[in-house]
């Protein structure tokens, strides 16, 4: 073809003895490969079938295979330099498939690529280019492993890796060298044999070392469970998760044998980075060691000798490991699977965990509080009750309904929705979505919670949910699917980003660092929306670990409820990183992250940046609502209703409180009052001879007054007084007094007449 270029030298003639030797060595090599690979394959195939596994939709699998295997996209993206070196080696191997076939064919006298023919010469140069980059790549990887020595590759130097790097380098070097020797020369023969032997030695080494990933990981990536950190459904009455060897499924076995021990999972693990026992790579290798020693038919426990229970319960399920893994291992289902095994059989004993489970077995929320606390919060914040007519059901979650910081977020988000004119309501009763018990592996309680919630949502005809909590969003949308069809749901960041154009930017010159919550970022792929909302208030800066690489706050996986951690606190580690950006505001988008950082930032002391949820940032741009209450030093003057110039302004904030005393109430009377109270949504305490209630909120259509009227008619013997303070923006409060006398409801109104200001601190010296 192109005569002036050197051609690839090949020995022309091989003696019969040589041919026999080639065949014998090839058979020995293949046997060496199969002897181990057959065992591994058998263990994988012998494992339990994955219940509910489907090959379809196949499009995503084909794409993942193309992108992650053929293009090496993940390998390169997450660790660019070593990733590129690896990609060169991989692509070199691909290009060499044809070369290697021809190489041995030449040895047997049936070579099909002529080094001087058109395609043969073209391909030999094509492969040479890959051989060159592959040789460079393997050299770079060798230098990294033996000279740079990143700790993720393990403390111990792996000499087998060194030897294999040498073999790969030899393969490429002998190939390239053959361009510079004469055909049929001794040198050509030596190069041919060195090349052949390198391959034949390499082949049996593959299944004995972590280079097994060469063969397995393309299959592992193609056969993933289908979505990120997906927890598979249990199958049948005897499936309690990963308890013993027979519980290991084919996917789990395939994945653990695919591990290439690169340590990317450990590098990004919040537990491993803060001195905990958990090391995700060791979990995978622990399961592999179990399979090697005992196999998938064993009834020995998976936790104990091979993996520690303590480590498994230190996982925050942040998914950083799974996201990083270049060979398609799904760590989260494996770790949660081991937890399920321990919890579903009752072998996990933990004071905090037990308390959480008991609280959710009987109660409604993970915080173990009375649901009346949630009712009070709803009344105080004047959150409308969902009645099927509103567009959105605002899901409060345990944090939004019970936690002080979570409540602030809900209140501010509600203000924004009010401002936007969005119709929404909250459920009268709500149970925990089951997120913490799901991740801790308590399938019994999770099922109870998911079913009860699904039923309540269906009864209330909820179509769309919006929630401030990424954990609720994830659990409702993905995990509940096991027990029914959950309504559409979105996170408030997605909602707010959609309406960002209608919110006034309130630029304050602040530097804001946004922390990506694991369950919003990696789990839901939402990165830009919360940033768009945070950007309403100032200049965004990024923490070193951001977006897909965001570092957990430490609360996920139920760990928020498990008490003090060992080692450094994950939240402190992350908070320090956020503070180091020099930001004046830390923006979060998850109530769990919020509470973790609230404590962590408090511990950093003076000058800590302020912490705001994106809903709070959005709410800051709204016109200010209620003014701070002014001094209550006042004189009340009674004005008869007939002469009163006062009318109650619409939308005023009312607080009613009072008790009326009655003689013994009849059953009918109690029922009437109860019905009237239920109809108006009031929480009324009805005693045998008294009726008491508090209400705070808007009473625009005067339903509380209506209730009092019913009360007056129903209880003729009643007497007593309810007081109502009506607060209007920036105006002095006005008071209404309702008294019930002889079946009539009397209203009196009063205003505050404020006296002149008087400084009463003067003269105080030693108070």
């Amino acid at each position: 073809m192109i005569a002036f270029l050197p051609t690839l030298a090949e020995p022309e003639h091989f003696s019969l003895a040589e041919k026999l030797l080639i065949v014998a060595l090839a058979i020995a090599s293949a046997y060496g490969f199969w002897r181990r690979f057959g065992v591994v394959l058998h263990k994988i195939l012998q494992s339990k079938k994955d219940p509910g596994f489907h090959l379809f939709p196949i499009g995503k699998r084909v794409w993942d295979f193309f992108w992650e295997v053929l293009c090496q996209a993940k390998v390169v993206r997450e660790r660019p330099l070593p990733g590129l070196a690896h990609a060169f080696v991989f692509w070199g191997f691909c290009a060499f498939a044809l070369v290697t076939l021809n190489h041995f064919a030449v040895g047997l006298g049936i070579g099909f690529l002529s080094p001087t023919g058109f395609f043969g010469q073209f391909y030999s140069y094509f492969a040479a280019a890959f051989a060159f980059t592959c040789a460079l790549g393997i050299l770079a990887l060798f230098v990294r492993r033996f000279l740079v020595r990143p700790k993720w590759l393990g403390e111990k130097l792996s000499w087998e890796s060194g030897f294999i790097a040498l073999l790969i380098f030899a393969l490429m070097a002998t190939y390239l060298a053959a361009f510079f020797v004469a055909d049929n020369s001794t040198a050509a023969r030596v190069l041919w044999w060195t090349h052949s032997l390198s391959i034949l030695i390499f082949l049996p080494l593959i299944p004995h070392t972590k280079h097994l990933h060469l063969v397995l990981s393309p299959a592992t990536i193609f056969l993933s469970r289908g979505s990120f950190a997906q927890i598979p459904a249990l199958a049948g009455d005897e499936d309690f998760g990963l308890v013993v060897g027979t519980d290991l499924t084919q996917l789990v076995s395939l994945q653990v044998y695919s591990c290439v021990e690169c340590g990317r999972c450990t590098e990004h693990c919040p537990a491993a980075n803060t001195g905990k026992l958990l090391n995700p790579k060791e979990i995978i290798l622990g399961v592999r060691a179990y399979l090697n020693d005992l196999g998938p038919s064993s009834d020995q426990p998976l936790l104990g000798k091979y993996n520690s229970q303590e480590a498994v319960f230190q996982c925050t399920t942040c998914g950083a490991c799974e996201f990083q893994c270049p060979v398609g291992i799904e760590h989260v289902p494996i770790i949660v699977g081991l937890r399920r095994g321990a919890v579903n059989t009752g072998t996990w004993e933990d004071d905090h965990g037990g308390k959480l489970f008991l609280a959710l077995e009987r109660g409604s929320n993970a915080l173990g509080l009375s649901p009346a606390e949630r009712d009070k919060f709803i009344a105080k914040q004047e959150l409308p009750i969902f009645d099927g007519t509103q567009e959105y059901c605002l899901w409060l979650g345990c944090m939004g309904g019970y936690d002080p910081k979570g409540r602030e977020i809900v209140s501010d988000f509600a203000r924004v929705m009010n401002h936007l004119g969005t119709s929404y309501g909250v459920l009268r009763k709500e149970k925990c979505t089951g997120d913490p018990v799901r991740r801790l592996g308590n399938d019994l309680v999770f099922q109870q919670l998911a079913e009860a919630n699904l039923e309540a949502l269906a009864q209330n005809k909820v179509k769309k949910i919006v929630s401030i909590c990424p954990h609720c969003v994830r659990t409702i949308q993905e995990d509940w699917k096991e027990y029914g069809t959950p309504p559409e749901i979105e996170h408030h960041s997605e909602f707010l980003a959609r309406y960002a154009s209608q919110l006034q930017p309130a630029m304050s010159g602040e530097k804001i660092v946004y922390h990506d919550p694991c369950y919003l970022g990696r789990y839901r792929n939402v990165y830009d929306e919360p940033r768009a909302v945070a950007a309403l208030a100032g200049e965004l800066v990024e923490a070193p670990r951001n977006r897909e690489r965001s570092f957990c706050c430490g609360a996920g996986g139920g760990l928020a409820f498990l008490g003090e951690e060992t080692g450094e606190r994950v939240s402190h580690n992350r908070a320090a990183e956020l503070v180091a950006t020099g930001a004046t505001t830390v923006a979060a988008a998850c109530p769990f992250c919020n509470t973790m950082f609230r404590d962590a930032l408090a511990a950093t002391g003076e000058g800590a940046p302020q912490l705001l949820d994106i809903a709070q940032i959005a709410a800051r741009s709204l016109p200010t609502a209620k003014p701070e209450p002014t001094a209550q030093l006042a004189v009340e003057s009674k004005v008869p209703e007939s002469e009163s110039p006062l009318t109650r302004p619409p939308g005023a904030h009312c607080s009613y409180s009072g008790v009326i005393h009655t003689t013994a109430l009849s059953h009918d009377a109690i029922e009437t009052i109860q019905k009237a109270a239920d109809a108006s949504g009031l929480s009324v305490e009805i005693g045998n001879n008294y009726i008491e209630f508090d209400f705070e909120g808007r009473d625009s259509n005067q339903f509380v007054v209506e209730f009092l009227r019913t009360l007056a008619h129903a209880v003729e013997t009643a007497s007593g007084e309810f007081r109502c303070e009506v607060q209007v923006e920036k105006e002095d409060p006005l008071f209404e007094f309702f008294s019930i006398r002889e079946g009539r409801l009397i209203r009196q109104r009063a205003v505050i007449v404020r006296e002149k200001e008087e400084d009463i601190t003067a003269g105080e010296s030693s108070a």
Partner: protein
Amino acid sequence: MKIIVAIKQVPDRDAQVRIDAAGKWIEETDLQYALNESDAYALEEALQLKEKHGGEVVVVSAGPERVGQTIREALAKGADRGIHIEAEDLGQRDALGVARLLAAAVKPESPDLVLTGLQSEDLGLGQTGVIVAELLGLPHATLILHVEKTDAGLTVKRELEEGWFQTIELPTPAVLTIQSGGNKLRYATLMGIKRAKMKEVRRVTAAELAADGAAVVQLERVSLPQKQKSTQILSGTPKEAAAALVEKLKFEVRVL
């Protein structure tokens, strides 16, 4: 060691309780029920004794159909079998009436130990366990926090007032009423629930037990507690007010 645990299903603590039309009991429809708390501790104590010394734990409970759910939960936590005394009229029975049912069901089992919570969360009479002991002619002890099996019988730890404890030895068979908080309760597990389906629950009716007799206590009326709010404003200088507050917290509220 064969242990019988008498348990009771009571309205859930968070449930909204209403008085029924007759004013003699509560409205039972739509009410959430749960296992009585101190009975849960009695069950836990029994399960721990079984784990240590072997034997069998049998739960017995009286009440309508819905009680079956609570018996299943106890089986799920580790009890070996259950006895459901079917009785629709539990609300009308006095402590003696309920104890007669329980004693009649327990007697043919000839257990080594009978445990029950010290009182129920709904009626709070605190008598049922003690009467069962009397009907069975067995020694009993109340307010027990901890049970230890000895060669001679049992050594038990009783809770007295003001942080005092008493240790008692008694022979078996015996009846003990268990105080809440002595142990850590175990959580229910999926495996437990699945296994519980296979366990035996024997149903007997009150008539079959032939344990009826005239009630000695008549229930007159039930009523909801009256909640009184009382606010006192302590006047004077901050110093005086603080002193008065401390005084009240110490001697009236007794929290200091």
